[in-house]
């Protein structure tokens, strides 16, 4: 396995309030995030995603477990100095301008004072706030605050970036920008841990995912390996009025649109199906491993996990 930029082992958090029953928010979560990858952290509300991130960043005291970022204990302040963090729904002192806020966070993060103005200009431009540098944050929309949150997380060129719901409050263009930004970061070797409800976003950018449910890990691994359906292949073919009978006999989930046939079949039938389409004069546009959507996978996984817990 490549170097782990982030390592969470046996994370556990039990909230205890005097006079009330103890509440377990995270029972046993382990996450390994390889350097230079984008790792998705998924789960329904209350699964323990944000609590896990907060423990990783020293905002919540863990009941148990170890938390490391770049080999250092991240529950200690010194272990977080190479980390950029975007909290869910970030808030800022509203009487500052965007530029002042960046200067504040830059100086806290140890960015050289002479470099802060230059980095501020570049990062605000990168997140689409170039025109709002001198605007007071009280006049910022929800989406603008989110963009500023991303910009401050990237101050100081962190080697690890942790983003909690980065697309929250953003319009579709903003969401696309965030996706592109994450891919850019990965290309530069930055490790990204992304917690998100937006499954399409996770599916589009993540290399690995960890899915949490009820405070523990329900599934983890390479996103392609998780979503590919074992033993089945998807085919897209065209230039045929109808599918040949040999294909119809093995194909499932057949759909046609604009002259393009789409269906799945057992992988071992691939050779026979390709030959049949050739003989029928059709053209094969694509043959790929059949892949579930992350939405379907996620829903099925949670349903199965809930049944396991119930039984």
């Amino acid at each position, binding site marked *: 396995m490549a170097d782990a930029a982030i390592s969470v082992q046996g994370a556990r958090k039990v909230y205890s309030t005097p006079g009330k029953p103890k509440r377990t928010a995270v029972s046993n979560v382990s996450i390994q995030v390889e350097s230079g990858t984008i790792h998705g952290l998924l789960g329904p509300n209350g699964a323990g995603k944000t609590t896990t991130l907060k423990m990783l960043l020293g*905002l919540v005291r863990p009941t148990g477990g170890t938390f490391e970022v770049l080999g250092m204990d991240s529950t200690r302040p010194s272990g977080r100095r190479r980390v950029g963090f975007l909290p869910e729904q970030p808030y800022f002192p509203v009487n500052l301008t965007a530029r002042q806020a960046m200067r504040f*966070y830059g100086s806290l993060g140890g960015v050289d004072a002479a470099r802060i103005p230059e980095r501020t200009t570049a990062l605000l431009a990168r997140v689409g706030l170039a025109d709002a540098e001198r605007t007071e944050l009280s006049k910022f929309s929800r989406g603008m605050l989110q963009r500023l949150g991303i910009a401050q997380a990237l101050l100081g060129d962190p080697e690890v970036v942790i983003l909690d719901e980065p697309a929250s409050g953003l319009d579709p263009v903003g969401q696309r920008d965030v996706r592109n930004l994450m891919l850019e970061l990965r290309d530069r070797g930055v490790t990204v841990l992304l917690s998100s409800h937006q499954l399409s976003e996770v599916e589009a950018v993540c290399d690995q995912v960890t899915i949490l449910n009820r405070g523990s890990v329900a599934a983890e691994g390479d996103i392609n390996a998780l979503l590919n359906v074992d033993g089945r292949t998807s085919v897209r073919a065209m230039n045929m009025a109808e599918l040949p009978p040999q294909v119809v006999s093995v194909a499932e989930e057949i759909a046609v649109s604009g002259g393009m046939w789409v269906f799945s079949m057992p992988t071992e039938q691939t050779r026979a199906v390709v030959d049949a389409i050739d003989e029928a004069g059709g053209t094969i546009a694509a043959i790929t491993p059949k892949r579930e959507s992350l939405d379907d996978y996620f829903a099925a996984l949670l349903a199965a996990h809930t049944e396991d817990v119930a039984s």
Partner: protein
Amino acid sequence: MMKRIWPIATAVMMDSLRRKVVYVVLGFAALLVLAIPSLPDYGLGVESAVFREVALALSYVTGLVVVLSLAANRVPAELEKRTVYNVLAKGVSRWEYLVGTWLGILGVMAGAIVAFTAIEMVVGYFTYGELMWRLWEGALATWFEMGVVSAFAVAVSSVTGPVVVVTAALAALFIGHSRSTLLGGEGAMALRPFYPSLDAFNVVNPVAHGSGVPLVYMLSMVVVFVGFAGACLSVGVLLLSRRDL
């Protein structure tokens, strides 16, 4: 360490300077200072002493209102609005955050007390033809005491809301100035050394009616200030470090 504490203190000061409450309180208090000479029934020869005494009292009350308005709400608001996440995630320790916040409030208090004492000096000079330099000794004592009060308020505010903070701070002030009342009896005299008294900062008599505060006493005030503020902040750091944010 100071690289992280100083920006927090500066942010607190800049934020405080934008708050209207500071200016309203200072303005109102300045008007009262202007009105002191109009108080009736001064005895001959004691007018300036009465002026100094009332001026010190006004400085104290003004400082208290400003410090409570700043210290009681600062940390709870940052925790509630989660602005503290961005700060702590940058590798700032909780103690650095708390001490930076306190230093920022202390800085605002210094500015407010200096401005207020300067007004008192000017009013005193034009009314009595006397430069009342000893008021600065009183100002320093007030600043020290407000530093302790703000450290206490910041410590309490790390685990509770503004109403409790203000109530607790006022209770602490009452207790801090009630040693002779509460431990006046001979049976309780042995407890005196352990009593958290703030009387060390009470320099009204030497400033208003005497010949000023001796240097040695000033130095002892510094020790009391550092001791009490340090103890309060240590408790605050301990409380905040045990808190889930």
